[in-house]
């Protein structure tokens, strides 16, 4: 059997199904009048998932195109950037964190530094006033700057 993405996925999904089943079996159920209870449905699904995964392992589809190394690196960079955005969102507040993240994100999508910076400035400031003033959403202004505002 050749190693195909679908086979790896199939094995992973069977693992997931087993995990789900074990978790379901460990549920402690208080006495109830209901005949089915909370276990049966996830258990049934995990069996179904196992069967479907087995079919996929024996009859995998084509492998698809996976990102090459350089692209994979950029992918991880974008993900890391989004994570940084999440971490800084409250710490630095919406305007500053968005300014940083949008600028770098635009740069990662091939804007020049100048254009990226303009995009960052415009989006963070216009966005802040649009969301807070027009839509009434409260956004973090940032712990670090809270004393100034």
């Amino acid at each position, binding site marked *: 059997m050749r190693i195909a993405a679908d086979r790896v996925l199939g094995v992973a999904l069977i693992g997931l199904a087993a995990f789900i089943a074990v978790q379901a079996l460990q549920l402690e*159920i208080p006495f109830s009048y209901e005949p089915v209870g909370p276990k049966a449905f996830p258990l049934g699904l995990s069996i179904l998932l196992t069967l479907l995964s087995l079919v996929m392992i024996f009859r995998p589809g084509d492998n698809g195109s996976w990102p090459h190394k350089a692209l994979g690196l*950029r992918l991880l960079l*974008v993900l890391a950037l989004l994570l940084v955005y999440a971490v800084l969102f409250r710490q630095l507040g919406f305007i500053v964190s968005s300014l940083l993240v949008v600028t770098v994100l*635009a740069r*990662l999508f*091939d804007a020049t530094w100048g254009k990226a910076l303009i995009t960052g400035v415009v989006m963070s400031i216009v966005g802040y006033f649009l969301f807070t003033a027009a839509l009434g959403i409260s*956004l973090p202004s940032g712990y670090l700057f809270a004393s100034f505002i």
Partner: protein
Amino acid sequence: MFDFLIDGFGVALTPLNLGLAFFGALLGTLFGALPGIGPINGIAILMPLAYTLGLPAESSLILLAAVYTGAEYGGRMSSILLNVPGDAGAVMTTLDGYPLAQKGLAGPALGLSAISSFIGATIAIIGLTLFAPLLAEIAVMFGPAEFFALMIFAFSSMSVMMGKDPIKTAIGAVLGVLIATVGIDSGSGVLRYTFGLPELYDGIDFVVMIIGLFAISEILLMLEHAHRSEDDGKLPPLGRVFVSLKEVIACKGAIGRSGLLGFIIGVLPGTGASVAGAVSYTTEKRLSDKDNTFGKGDMRGLAAPESANNAAAVGSFVPMLTLGIPGSGTTAVLLGALMLYNITPGPMMFTERPEVAGGLIASLYIGNVVLLMLNLPLAGVFARVLTIPRWVLVPAIAILAFVGVYQLHSDLFAIYLMLIIGVFGYLLRKLGFSLAPVILGYVLGGLMEQNLRRALSISGGDVGILWQSGISLGLWIAAALLLVLPWLVPKLLSKKSREEAQQD
């Protein structure tokens, strides 16, 4: 019988709702035209914002439905002008749309597709008005066992019709249903799959789920195209702006037939605009492609899928509004939006919340006219949206996604969860999964389990109740046939042809 529609127009014609229908149509067309933002993404991004505006349920549904139908209009732009389908429903539009643009007929092609879309959608809206109340009357008789059988039918019809690989469609649906089991079990109060995280007690939030699954995965996917063809993005000249009446009349058969076909396909649960476009195109090719001009810029080959995919988009409202079973990924998202307002769509909605059902249907009539009026003269303006660079688009999606999720509970946990779901969605898409079954499974999963358990509670645990009634038995048989036929028919056919070959 049509009282609900008259009342509905009363709701839809209030200045607020009229404005929302117009605004939604405009925004939807723009979102549909933007590369990578299809109807689902558009609605996913807008839904939390609509929710914060504090709009009443019918108003936000009118807004989101206008975005949905508008996005079906907008999806054709990149299909015709760049040969890149904006979403799955517009794939067939490229076949004759792009050759027309290359002939210098981009303007008329856009005009014709707007008119075909309008007529197709109109046929379907009339169908919706006629059939939805009837179906709702039948559906009132449904008990939990019938609903469970109906969902089984929906999933099997989806597995067969949606996507290339039925196994992957089914796996996607199962994963979606599994995600729906996270949180406090409503039947017993037991915590399932929360891993001690109190944030998960209420389950995975619907907004977090769709924004992660669609918007975040789209950002990651767009990275692959970041380098490609930034210069190819130059638009072909539009040529003359309007399509002539003669050209439209030449397509009237194609438009009418495809509109009907698209509506019927849209009504079937699990089969949406993409299937409708494909079926109508091949049907029309078989019927009227006498000079072998289809695929080379035949206007009828453009009109047919455009009429059909808009008709299907509207048709998929029928099962959603009457049965609470969405006909497509996008209506699944709309269904989830309704649930945020504690409205469970289904047969009772026409009697209990007529302002929602009627208002929505009436607003579809209005939105459709608005879309035609917007799209005919403004095609050139909308087309320019295609040239928006990704380095503007992607950060904008990121900001909207973060703000949309953050405002739910002012909580960072939801944002981390959104990112995890985004990576999950990206991997699924790279592995050839379609995301629509996942979202359908997620939306229907809770209802499915509830109905199953309710049915078995009624019968005291006897499984036989699930297929006791004629309706549920019929649905089970239909579901089984759907799963078996596509696999069986080619085998029978090939056996027959083998026998014929032996006779030769």
